[in-house]
């Protein structure tokens, strides 16, 4: 119980810290956000509308900072995220995010889970066949792939599979815009086609880390007495490999998974930018380009929440898989 409270406190604290950063960065960074805003919206909106936008963004220069801060926290937590002052001028932030979210969840979410699962599996086999041919090649290869810049892999893939092959695979946007979105086979096919290259980029750059950590955990675990005991009991090799070795080697990887989500998000921003893929990452890029404070703030909060949720899920999974952790709670 104490453990649960501690974790809960940690989540709240982190969320608060992220929100606070969000609030103070625009106010204390050099360059006046208000002027920037005024420049951006000059001629497009009246002074009155600008004032209204500013206040919806939580910027009320006449109010004291404490009051502004409290209002801002309340708005953020209650989903009053304001309206965009960037490209989609005047559109509510919630609806902009609502359009982009499914694409990122679909592309980045599925690919990340796939990379984690596949990488873990390959790592298990490589560690089990320690000293074999596979184990000799894999580690150096994946040390290299895990250090490659996301965007460079994306550019290479575009060059190879799109530019050189006369547009074999699309390298732009999330579906063929000549199609009408719907559950038609043509549209779904187009969506999948457009996802191939960005997903491959994310997979190539993130799978290496999982393979390496799982292989290394596996090797450490294989030296444990309980693995030898599994053999001594005459269990089938598969049972020893999964039920005794991998089952234990997997546990540290789980907490690593949550922590790595930050890197996945950075990958998502760069990859969606390169492929003009209209997900949350691309949205952050364009919000930053267009000085769209409300959108930026909300996105940053959502990214933090995403990582926190992942941490929470991994916490629960660890407690479910490891009785020693359960005992502590």
């Amino acid at each position, binding site marked *: 119980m104490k453990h649960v409270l501690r974790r809960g406190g*940690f989540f709240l604290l*982190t969320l608060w810290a992220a929100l606070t950063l969000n609030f103070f960065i625009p106010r204390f*960074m050099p360059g006046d956000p208000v002027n920037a805003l005024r420049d951006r919206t000059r001629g497009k909106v009246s002074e009155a509308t600008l004032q209204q936008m500013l206040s919806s963004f939580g910027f009320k220069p006449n109010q004291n900072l404490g009051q502004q801060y409290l209002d801002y926290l309340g708005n953020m937590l209650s989903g009053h995220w304001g309206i965009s002052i960037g490209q989609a001028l005047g559109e509510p932030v919630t609806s902009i995010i609502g359009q982009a979210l499914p694409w990122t969840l679909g592309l980045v979410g599925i690919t990340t889970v796939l990379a984690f699962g596949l990488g873990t599996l390959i790592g298990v086999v490589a560690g089990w066949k320690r000293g074999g041919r596979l184990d000799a090649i894999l580690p150096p290869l994946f040390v290299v792939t895990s250090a490659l*810049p*996301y965007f*460079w892999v994306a550019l290479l893939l575009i060059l190879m599979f799109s530019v050189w092959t006369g547009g074999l695979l699309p390298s732009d946007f999330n579906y063929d815009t000549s199609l009408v979105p719907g559950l038609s086979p043509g549209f779904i096919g187009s969506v999948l086609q457009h996802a191939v290259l960005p997903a491959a980029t994310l997979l190539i750059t993130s799978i290496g880390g999982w393979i390496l950590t799982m292989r290394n955990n596996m090797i450490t675990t294989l030296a444990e007495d309980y693995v030898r005991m599994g053999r001594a009991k005459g269990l089938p090799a598969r049972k020893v490999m999964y*039920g005794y070795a991998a089952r234990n080697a997997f546990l540290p990887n789980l907490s690593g998974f949550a922590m790595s989500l930050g890197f996945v998000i950075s990958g998502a921003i760069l990859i969606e930018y390169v492929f003009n893929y209209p997900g949350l990452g691309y949205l952050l890029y364009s919000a930053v380009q267009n000085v769209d404070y409300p959108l930026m703030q909300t996105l940053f909060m959502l990214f933090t929440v995403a990582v926190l949720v992942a941490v929470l899920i991994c916490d629960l999974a660890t407690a479910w898989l*490891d*009785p020693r952790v359960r005992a502590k709670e």
Partner: protein
Amino acid sequence: MTVLQGAAAVTPKPRRSVGRGLWRALRGNRKAMAGSVILLIFLVISAFPGLFTSVSDPNALAFPPRLGPSSGHLLGTTGLGQDVYSQLIYGTRQSLIIAVVAGFFATVLSVLIGVSAAYLGGVMDDLLSMLTNVALVIPAFPLIVILAKYAGHGSLTVLLVVLVVTGWAYGANQMRAQALSLRNRDFLESARVRGERRAYIIVFEVLPTMTSLIVANFLGAALYSVLSAAGLQFLGLGDPNSSSWGTMLYWAQNQQALQTGAPLWSIAPGLCVALLGVAFALMNYAFDEIGNPALRPVKAKERKVRAAVAAKAAAAGPPEAVVSQDIALQDAADTDAPLLQVRGLTVEYATARGSSVAVAGVDLDVRRGEFLGVVGESGCGKSTLLFAIARLLSAPASTTSGSVTFKGSNLVAMTEKQLNVLRWRDYSVVMQSAMNALNPVRTIGAQFKDAIEAHADYGSEKIRERSVEVLQLVGIDPVHLKSYPHQLSGGMRQRAMIAMALLFTPDLVIMDEPTSALDVVAQRSLMVQIKELQQLLGFAVIFVTHDMSLVSRFSDRLVVMYAGQVVETGPTRTVFDTPSHPYSKGLLDAFPSIHGERVELKGIPGSPPDLGNPPSGCRFNPRCPVVQERCRSQEPELYQIGELGQVKARCLLLTPDNEPQESRSLEVNS
């Protein structure tokens, strides 16, 4: 050892030795070398860019745009009319500066926060750890993007500050963990006793031992900085007029380099970023390998030795020795032949220096229902012998010759599949520490079930019944079938493991120091229980221990091992009362006798030899109190001694032609 000596012994001079050891380890690591070479090349280029290109201002629009590669423009020109190759050369410096400077300050921050948290402890530790964890979870890259934007088109300094602020947390966590583990180490304790100030201890005692982690951390932070900075500049959040790979990438993307026939403009700087990143990643991984040797790839040299050992092992157990898949086990009624007959069993470890013989031609017999004790110091090959008998060795160890005949079949010649039929049904194993030998994430009941299911087709009811039965045999409440290993006490765990070994009431139970993790009282009661179970169920036991007095009351026969060889074997009582080999004598003198009179305990000076290079002649000669000249050259065999020939010992002084006076003088002298 006096107190003063103790202090001197535990106060190492880590500074130089750590650095030198690290250097040697790095030199031998191929990944580290590859990484350093790449890094070195980039360093030279960044220091003397003028040497590598004749273009003096790479940003000037001096050439026609989008030229293909040619001798004049190795990598062609940009869409704006600059030479790609010379831009790359001049861009090296900034990327390196970002990597090194941001990596350095992030590491400093990690060390500062991590080590402070560990050493200040209490509330400060809580606060700093909390800060670290929060910083770890907040997604860094979006934050960098936002920060870079607010800070205006970032100068290099802003970029560096942002990278340091977002890059320290991961390292701080690791620093804290390692510093905590160091806190109570002897050499720090002695520094505190000497009255050194805390700051002194941290700087001169703690940090040097953390060198390897700190360097690895720097490399990780540098990698992170290179990739993040390039990503930021690629997005157009850097200074668009600076000379860097990231800026080149930005312009290339901005001008659609890929689509307009100038792919090298975009691919080449990306490759440079990748190479620099790979250099740091390779070195970083090399440090992981140096810190944990098990992760290292098997070296070619060692691979050769392994292959040679494996070839010998294959020759020792030709597959045709077992005629069919069905192993014809001896009838239980056939009690004439021993249950287990080990002949000439030899185990070799393959190491990079060559192979080392851990068990050298061991012979032993175990009859049905017999309790055989195997004793010897740590490192004399007893456990290796046990695992060789049970066929549980794993690389780099393997059985290279000899046979293990169990109920009429040679285990050495069997495949893993054939062995799995016999394992647990006919012989089972109990290991040293049940804490480590029981799977920590599965219940006792589940682990029993695994074993039963592998060998019998019981229904779930019968599995439960049998599990309850064996637990009750060892006196554990059956409710603990639902318990996990960590929920039981040390003694209970050990009993549970013994219960598991009895699931099929095998003919032979192989026990590797099953009591050594327990306190003396628990040891005794467990021994008594093992003996009772043995008498009740009639299985034979091979019991390995370093504590000779422990087996004195329980074993029927003793095998004394030294340096991989059997040096004495015989009925326990006889060996105890009149040890023949000087080593057995020494072992006996090293443990207090429970019943005997009080005598001064004597150890055996020195330690067991390196099995890769055993002494010539008698292996015990360097430590033997009654050593003679011929012991150093002549290798003794196992000689039969005593009227009944029940005792055998490996000592030249006991050769049949040796004069009896001399053998008697042995007892007097020692």
